[in-house]
């Protein structure tokens, strides 16, 4: 690790003021930044510890959930109001990382974690446009089994690793930000950026801005939601494919559907074409639901080693839909 100094902030405004001096970065749970510091990928001059900020509360009422950015993954996963009203969020968190990491990692930091693309994480590879803009992408012609089939560019095909973000995209959460010029809210679907020509820019955060919380609106499809994660080993692994699905079912018909997927896109991927095809179908109509899931392939550009993800993603959606349809 390169040398850095350490400062603890007690108020959000003080943290935002402090982080504007050159070379300063926030640290919350620290689970990702410590890895990046040890790998020499981040070289801040100063870390601003934000863990003492009063941003760790979790409130759930009839309008929705308000989750403080410093709430820990494990606390959100176990919160009775989240479990009951937003099961996909709780399940996505419990299928993430390990129990130890979930006790440490913050909700805000989870949205900002960097990709697990091997070529990004291992600095001994020269080419990585995320790590060193303009250096190229080693994954496009390399070991790309884990990479994206949607949203990639000639510069980057890395997937976004967060499970939580996938559930939040499906449930149309709002990210609350505070910066030097005040506060603003960004829909989670617009928070992460496509790689395009600048894959090192991963979100819409402006310099000095801090995630202070995440709001999730209450909805029938949120109460009847589910997160399914498919991976190479049973636990403690990133997704090959994952699906957050929510259905509003009444009188045996689908009145509303929300679907987002992880493991297939360069950012958490909302599948509105699939949602649209599900609306009006009879709950559990295997043929209609398969036709709906087939729509996820539109625009997919598989790489040499990950074409299997198209079929796997369809089956992931269908299995998740089946679970939700049976839920009471």
């Amino acid at each position, binding site marked *: 690790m390169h*040398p*850095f*100094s350490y400062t603890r902030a007690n108020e959000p405004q003080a943290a935002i003021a402090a982080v504007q001096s050159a070379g300063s970065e926030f640290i919350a749970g620290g689970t990702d930044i*410590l*890895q990046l510091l040890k790998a020499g990928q981040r070289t801040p001059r100063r870390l601003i510890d934000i863990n003492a900020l009063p941003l760790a509360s979790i409130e759930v009422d009839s309008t929705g959930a308000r989750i403080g950015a410093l709430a820990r993954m494990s606390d959100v996963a176990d919160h009775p109001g989240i479990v009951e009203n937003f099961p996909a969020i709780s399940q996505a968190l419990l299928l993430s990382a390990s*129990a*130890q990491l979930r006790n440490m990692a913050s909700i805000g930091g989870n949205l900002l974690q960097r990709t697990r693309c091997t070529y990004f994480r291992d600095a*001994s590879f*020269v080419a990585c446009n995320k790590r060193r803009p303009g250096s190229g992408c080693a994954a496009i012609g390399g070991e790309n089994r884990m990479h994206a089939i949607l949203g990639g560019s000639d510069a980057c095909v890395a997937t976004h690793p967060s499970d939580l973000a996938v559930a939040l995209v499906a449930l149309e959460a709002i990210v609350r930000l505070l910066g030097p010029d005040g506060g603003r809210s960004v829909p989670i679907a617009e928070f992460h950026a496509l790689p395009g020509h600048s894959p090192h820019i991963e979100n819409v955060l402006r310099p000095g801005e801090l995630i202070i919380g995440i709001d999730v609106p209450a909805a029938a499809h949120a109460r009847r939601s589910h997160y399914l994660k498919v991976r190479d080993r*049973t636990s403690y692994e990133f997704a090959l494919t994952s699906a957050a699905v929510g259905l509003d079912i009444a009188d045996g018909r689908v009145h509303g559907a929300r679907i987002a997927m992880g493991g297939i896109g360069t950012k958490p991927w909302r599948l509105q074409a699939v949602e649209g095809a599900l609306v009006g179908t009879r709950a559990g109509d295997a043929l209609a639901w398969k036709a709906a899931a087939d729509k996820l392939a539109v625009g997919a550009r598989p790489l040499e080693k990950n074409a299997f993800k198209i079929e796997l993603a369809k089956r992931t959606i269908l299995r998740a839909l089946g679970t939700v349809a049976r839920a009471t």
Partner: protein
Amino acid sequence: MTTDLTRRAFVETSGLACGVVAAGVTLGLNSDAGAQATEPPPDREPASEIVLTLRINGAPHDVNVDPRTTLLDALRERLHLTGTKKGCDMGACGACTVHVDGRRVNACLTLAVMVEGKEITTIEGLARGSELHPVQQAFVDHDGFQCGYCTSGQIMSAVALIAEGRARNDAEIREFMSGNICRCGAYPNIVAAIRDSARRA
């Protein structure tokens, strides 16, 4: 070699030698090393040492650390509490698991300076005098280890798991212990030890 050379002193000396060799190997294989060397060194202020008081196993410990020091390195290298093990040093193996304010965490991804004022419990803090903690005793009774390197992390994780109420069946124990890797593959006996401890708790 003197006869009173301790195992620890030997390991530390050997580790130093290995480190030198490993560094050479890394440079030789690292295709990016040349490119990195041509970049200008970053402009930065020298980091000053921070004086901390860490509460570990119920007692205060004063320690001077560079801000970069992880809790794991502070425990092992500065306070000589070497029961907590360093495996991957990247949060992937769980060998460094300790409790901070009663919650299990990876000490390798925790900066020491960030846990000042918190209650830290390490494997050295579980036993009461010569009486092992019930989970420690269960690992002995069920032969829940082979080489033993991951064991202190497994036990710290298991104690927390039982307190969390996540040891209701074998599948749940396996899922919620998945942050602790055992390269020897002693998992069946680890699960048996935890199942037994949870039943008695």
